[in-house]
């Protein structure tokens, strides 16, 4: 029970972290550097999963992506495949739940980059894309990394939305937090304990690295 849950968690969290990093940085960039009217509304919507009960977010995800969901029904009609109760669903649930942390961190990190650095780059003839990758990204790197580490931790601990959208199928969608719950409910205290220890250890390491990354240093 421990080993499959551990493997699955690792798989789910890896995919989720990559998704979150790319999407969160992109969304954070738009929120930090672009001016548009519905900006704060967009920010609020993206932050919603952070404040909503995870089961509510999970419920909305079913409404959206379930077999009869708003988007899910087209996906099913086209491919005969549905997201619900697959390991991919766990990836989606974890990503949606952890994305707000990344968006918030990325927005803050990118906003803290003095816009005049980008202007200097433009004045030296560089385009938006080159400026982003060679100036903005390196200057915001620590803040972005901190956001990635935090959202990794959030994705790893995801429970409620995962349970709603992916279910709790051992070896298929049962991630570590779900396995702890099941082990505890069925009286298998030792298994629950081992899993809890693994997650606690991971969390400590995560906080440690986040602190190192966000600590202001003399270089960079």
């Amino acid at each position, binding site marked *: 029970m421990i080993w499959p849950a551990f493997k699955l968690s690792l798989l789910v969290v890896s995919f989720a972290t990559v998704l979150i990093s790319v999407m969160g940085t992109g969304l954070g960039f738009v929120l930090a550097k672009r001016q548009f009217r519905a900006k704060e509304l967009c920010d609020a919507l993206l932050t919603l999963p952070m404040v909503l009960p995870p089961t509510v977010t999970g419920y909305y995800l079913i409404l959206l992506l379930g077999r009869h969901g708003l988007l899910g029904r087209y996906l099913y009609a086209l491919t005969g495949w549905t997201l619900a109760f697959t390991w991919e669903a766990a990836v989606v649930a974890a990503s949606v739940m952890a994305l707000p942390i990344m968006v918030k961190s990325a927005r803050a990190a990118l906003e803290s980059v*003095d816009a*005049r*650095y980008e*202007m*200097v*780059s*433009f*004045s*030296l*003839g*560089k*385009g938006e894309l080159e400026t982003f990758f*060679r*100036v903005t990204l*390196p*200057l915001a*790197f620590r803040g972005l990394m901190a956001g990635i580490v935090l959202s990794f931790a959030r994705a790893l601990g995801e429970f409620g939305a995962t349970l709603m959208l992916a279910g709790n199928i051992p070896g298929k969608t049962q991630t570590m937090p779900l396995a702890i719950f099941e082990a505890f409910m069925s009286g298998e205290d030792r298994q629950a304990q081992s899993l809890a220890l693994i997650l606690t250890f991971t969390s400590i390491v995560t906080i440690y690295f986040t602190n190192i990354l966000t600590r202001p240093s*003399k*270089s*960079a």
Partner: protein
Amino acid sequence: MLNAKIKKEFRTNGRITFSLDASFVLRQGIGVLFGPSGSGKTTILRSIAGIAVPDEGRIELGEHVYFDSEKGINLPIQRRRIGFVFQDYLLFPHLTAAQNVAYGIGSATPKGRRDRALELLDLLGIAYASDRRPQQLSGGEQQRVALAHALGSDPVILLLDEPLSALDAATRLRLMGEIVDLQRKSKIPFLYVTHSPADAVRVGDSALILSAGRIVQEGKPTEVFNAPRDSVVARAVGSENILAGKVQDHNEREGISMIDLGGCELVTPYNALPKAAPVTIGIRSDDIIVSRQRIGQTSARNLLEGRIMHVVQDGPEVDLLTACGVNLKVRVTAGAFEALDLKPGAKVFLLIKASSCHLLS
């Protein structure tokens, strides 16, 4: 040649809070854009760079049209080929000095870029620091690297926004000389924004005085600063005479130095500069005593003879603009102005203590 005509209004809650309406031409050399803060200097610079968009106007550099409100032209900043130097340097902190300079260089190969970067750093006398990060450099070194950085993309004009105001006096002095040298070597026009009269007189080939969004006077810096046309200009440039000269001689025993101002000689407190070194001297206009008759022995080391050219009345005080070999502003009270009958054309003698002649740079 830069030819700019810029109109821009700033509004808060629909009310116009500031309006800029400036036209000017910058030919070769270093043009100084001088004015108190809030006079519109930075908006002009930002408009030329393409960061701010004027409401109306036309900006062209040689045959390149940067902006034309009538034809709807607004060239993006990337295509204007402008070098920009800031007060706080703005070097990329994650790159070394050489990498910073290489960043804007268009050469195809990394080696070509690095060679050209080292060449530029060498030109600024800072090649020794090529592998250091900006935060390992002093302010003066950073600004040298920033100059090389801005020249990296081979710009057609260099815009300098108060480039020296964060530096100490000795470094400012050295860098002013280097900026002038750099302009002569690079042969592109420099537009130099400052609110320091000493900077303006030292580096400027021409000066534009900006006040409340309008260009109120333009001309040679020493003339503009010491012969303001009216009270608006007088207020903008301040009450100090700013004179550029060369060290002529020293008398260390008496603690004085003689400065050649071109049209006349001035006795100042002793300075340790070598002979013929360029200096800028400041004399506050209310530190000068006016007399209609030649006065015999006084403790003041300078007695200059000249005429009043014109008179600018500003409230209870009157600025006399005199020609005594050089132009000098003299501020007197309205009472003294009437009692001495100080009309334009009148012959005057000016008494200036050596200690009132401050070495600005």
